[in-house]
């Protein structure tokens, strides 16, 4: 693995943990799959379609999201929205995120 690839894998690891929190946060209002992808990417979240779609499916299977099919247009489109359980999970994750953020900042600020 080259140096760049090595760094990239660490960065990917770092990002991966935050995806669920980001998705849950956005889904406090309903979104179609692709639309959600665009929203997240606009906000600067580095995420690909082949990661997001399976993630949404998984979160729904775990009860954190609800989904439905919009059949009002010519072709049916599935949209997701956060569930009650998802809202609880979101609060937990947000707390933990802040906690991690503080800890890391403190560690990095320390004079060595």
């Amino acid at each position, binding site marked *: 693995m080259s140096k760049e690839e090595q760094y990239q894998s660490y960065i990917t690891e770092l990002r991966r943990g935050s995806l669920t929190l980001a998705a849950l946060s956005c889904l406090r209002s309903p979104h*179609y*799959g692709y639309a959600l992808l665009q929203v997240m990417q606009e906000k600067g979240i580095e995420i690909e*379609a*082949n990661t997001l*779609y*399976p993630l949404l*499916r998984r979160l729904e299977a775990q009860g954190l999201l609800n989904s439905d099919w919009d059949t009002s247009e010519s*072709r049916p489109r599935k949209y997701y929205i956060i569930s009650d359980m998802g809202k609880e999970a979101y609060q937990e994750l947000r707390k933990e995120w802040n906690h991690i953020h503080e800890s890391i900042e403190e560690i990095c600020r320390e004079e060595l």
Partner: protein
Amino acid sequence: MDQLIERYVYDVIRRLPEKEREEVKAELTANIYDMLSEEPGQEEIEKVLAELGDPAKLAVQYSQNTGYLISPAFYFDYIRTLKWIVPMIALIVGVVMMCVKVAEIIGMLGGNENTALLAKTVTSGMISAGIGGAVEGAVQAVIWVTIGFVIAEKTQVSKEAWNLKKLPEMPDVGSKPMSIADSIVELILPLVFFGILILWKMDVIGIFFSISGGTSAVHVLSDSFMNRFIVFVFVGVLFNTVKCSLQIYYGRFDKTVGMVQILDGIVGLAMLPYLFRANDLFHEEFIGFLRTKEWGEFDILRYLNSQNGEMGTVTAIVFGFFALAIFIEIGVALYKMIRLSIERKEA
């Protein structure tokens, strides 16, 4: 052109369990069309599909299970088990098939006086049967070990959380690691000896003496003794196989190895009376052969036969040697085990 999207989606869902397929197909297709404009051109479709990437990888993301046949949790133990079971089973099956083949050939060519032909057929048959048996044994061993571990994986056998009690003992502090080559040789030699014994019993090989002008094989050991001896050796070979497999597994002397050795010795001792119970060590042919020789003053026959049901002297000596060898074996094992436990206490 739509075919491209359909084919892509199909390539993803075919890797998923059946009950997932319809849903994922609907979702993924809808998402893909969302990513395209109203009347998408070929190029646009290709670009979007390329963005989604390898269907195989996408399917992995979608699937619920870990995708491992044997996960990292079990993998190390799996490989380690294979390493010692497969050679052991291959060896045993190979040797057994060799003996079976030899018996078969004898059965077919039995009565044929041409020992050269017999030897040649037996040798070539033996080797191919041996190799075939070993290969088949190895394959079977791999299959069953793998199945066993896959089952353990699926049922997640060790649900019990790890705790300190599960730590294995340290491999023997101070005792030298045994080379695998040594242990393998130790494993094979008795098997070879057993094979030779069987061949001897089958009259494929024999000890030749010249009797009145011609050479022929004379049976030295009596049939009944031979049969008992084969049983005796077989039991010994079994113990030895177990012991050597353990040695290979542990990589050095361990008290389990010592215990197997001692058990082997005890069983061996217990079998000695059975082995030597009747004074039938030597075959009549051999005794008859000896009679044809002039021994002068030294009447060897007297030492072979018994008077009044006592064991002949020679039989007694042979018995003595066996017993002594077994005692030494037990003694060595005990010594090693004692030394081992002393070293452990000091360590």
